[in-house]
């Protein structure tokens, strides 16, 4: 029964993929006929050149992925920390509460600052350094995590905590056995969103200085900007496709992890649950 439904799932996934590729291909062909968008053949040629004749694309993928991963880690850590700090808003002390709410206001303001414009400011602070790029990626990644952390802390079920206090659990026990598990799924979803946002921020971050570091390439974003400046649309399409594929693959990874880690959230619900 299980293997059969698995086979069905794989079959339907393959069918979906084929339909999606055909649909995209037709759409592309139509647009390429009407505009200067390079045709499929030209793009495939460019891909071969970039991948096979040169390791430049591979090295750029590596560079961008490394920045993405590092930025995501830093962003998630900051988002978690700030989210927890914001929870001071629930404190009984007026001063702590005011501090918490002030941080919430600051975050609400910073959240709507356009990330695409950040490089202009970051260059003046961090110069053309690698840390500036990581900062921009982390910036973008921090907000979804901040929101999910703060949201799940203030939305915590009071009755769960009351039960824990009645059972005589200590502060640490309540934190480990109630608060953390109750917020972990929400926070994970926040991290998954952040992973997507971080890819967007990679493009913005790599506006800053085109520098090669050791074996790492320029980065897909840098290549993309260069392709735009040098008017190489086929190259641009290849880099964009790389971003798309990397984004889908990393999201798939997070989805698989989510299913493994939060079994209870994927159980078939009773009608009244």
């Amino acid at each position, binding site marked *: 029964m299980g293997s059969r439904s698995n086979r069905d799932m794989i079959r339907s996934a393959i069918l979906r993929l084929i339909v999606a590729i055909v649909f995209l291909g037709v759409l592309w062909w139509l647009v390429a006929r009407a505009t200067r968008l390079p045709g499929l053949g030209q793009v495939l040629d460019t891909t071969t050149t970039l991948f096979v004749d040169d390791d430049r694309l591979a090295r750029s993928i590596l560079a961008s992925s490394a920045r993405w991963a590092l930025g995501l880690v830093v962003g998630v850590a900051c988002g978690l920390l700030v989210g927890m700090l914001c929870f001071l808003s629930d404190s009984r002390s007026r001063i702590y509460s005011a501090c918490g709410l002030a941080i919430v206001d600051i975050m609400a303001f910073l959240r709507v600052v356009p990330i695409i414009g950040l490089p202009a400011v970051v260059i003046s602070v961090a110069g053309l350094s690698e840390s500036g790029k990581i900062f921009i990626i982390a910036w973008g990644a921090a907000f979804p995590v901040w929101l999910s952390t703060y949201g799940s802390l203030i939305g915590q*079920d009071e*009755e*769960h905590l*009351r*039960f824990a*206090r*009645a*059972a*005589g659990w200590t502060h640490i026990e309540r934190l480990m*056995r*109630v608060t953390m*598990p*109750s917020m*972990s*799924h929400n926070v994970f979803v926040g991290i998954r969103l952040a992973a997507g946002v971080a890819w967007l921020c990679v493009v913005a971050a790599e506006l800053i200085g085109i520098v090669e570091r050791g074996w790492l390439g320029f980065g897909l974003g840098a290549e993309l900007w260069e392709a735009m400046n040098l008017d190489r649309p086929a190259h641009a399409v290849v880099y964009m496709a790389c971003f798309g594929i990397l984004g889908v693959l990393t999201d798939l990874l997070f989805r698989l992890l989510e299913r493994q880690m*939060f*079994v*209870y*959230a994927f*159980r*078939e*619900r*009773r009608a*009244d*649950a």
Partner: protein
Amino acid sequence: MIDETFDEVRVGNRLLFHKVSLRVPRGQVLALMGRSGIGKTTVLRLLVDRLSGRGPLGYMPQHGGLFPWQRVQQQMSNARHGLSDSAVHKVMTGLGLEQSLLRRFPVELSGGQRLRVGVSRALLAGGEICVLDEPFSGLDPATMFECASFLLQWVIAKQITLVFSTHGLDDAVTVADRIFVLRLGDQGNGEIFENSIQRADRFERTPADEQQVQLRRAILEAMGSVQPSQADWLSCASTVWRPPRRADARWRPSAPTSSSLIGKGEVPSASARPPI
């Protein structure tokens, strides 16, 4: 025992009661009643907050309050350290829960099952005091009857002090020794009714029994806004079936076989309905 007084009971800024005193001697059962939205849950929460930290306390929040991320097995082990499987088995059986439910997550349980898992968890806490917020809401009459009789047996066996809130007259008059009716704007203690029916007799007497009718009527009238004629009707209509009158079905606290109380093939008939 419980002896707690709460002044100025509020929800947010809204004052519900000037003063509520809850006094329950050890081993006794108090039912908290009152019309929907009156503040039963609020009072119970205050009680739990007050009693927390004074040793183990069994608590079931409304709707069970189970942790969504844990299987029933783990929920049970939250009750206290070193809980034996046989204890869990005993309580679950008593409350009509199958052992196969232990592997399930709360989302995979029905509302009534979630409630009873919550009750099990509270009973297994091992404390002297147990607080249950609507342990019987939404259960069918047969299951309710089974659970109510098990709960009373547990109270007698473990000598625990139990406070529970309820909307049902049936469970109040069968389980509780005293019924506390909350009414809005109470200056003092609300109204308290002693259940003069002996514990051993409670599951024997039908709702048509004169003593039962009196108690049910009094509770309903105390809730307020009930016309005497309505009270007549309501006090009888909440139960239409009657436990079988068989010699071997007699309820004994020391020999708990709660399921034997549920009649085999006994169909509620019009004649079981008390005269209105």
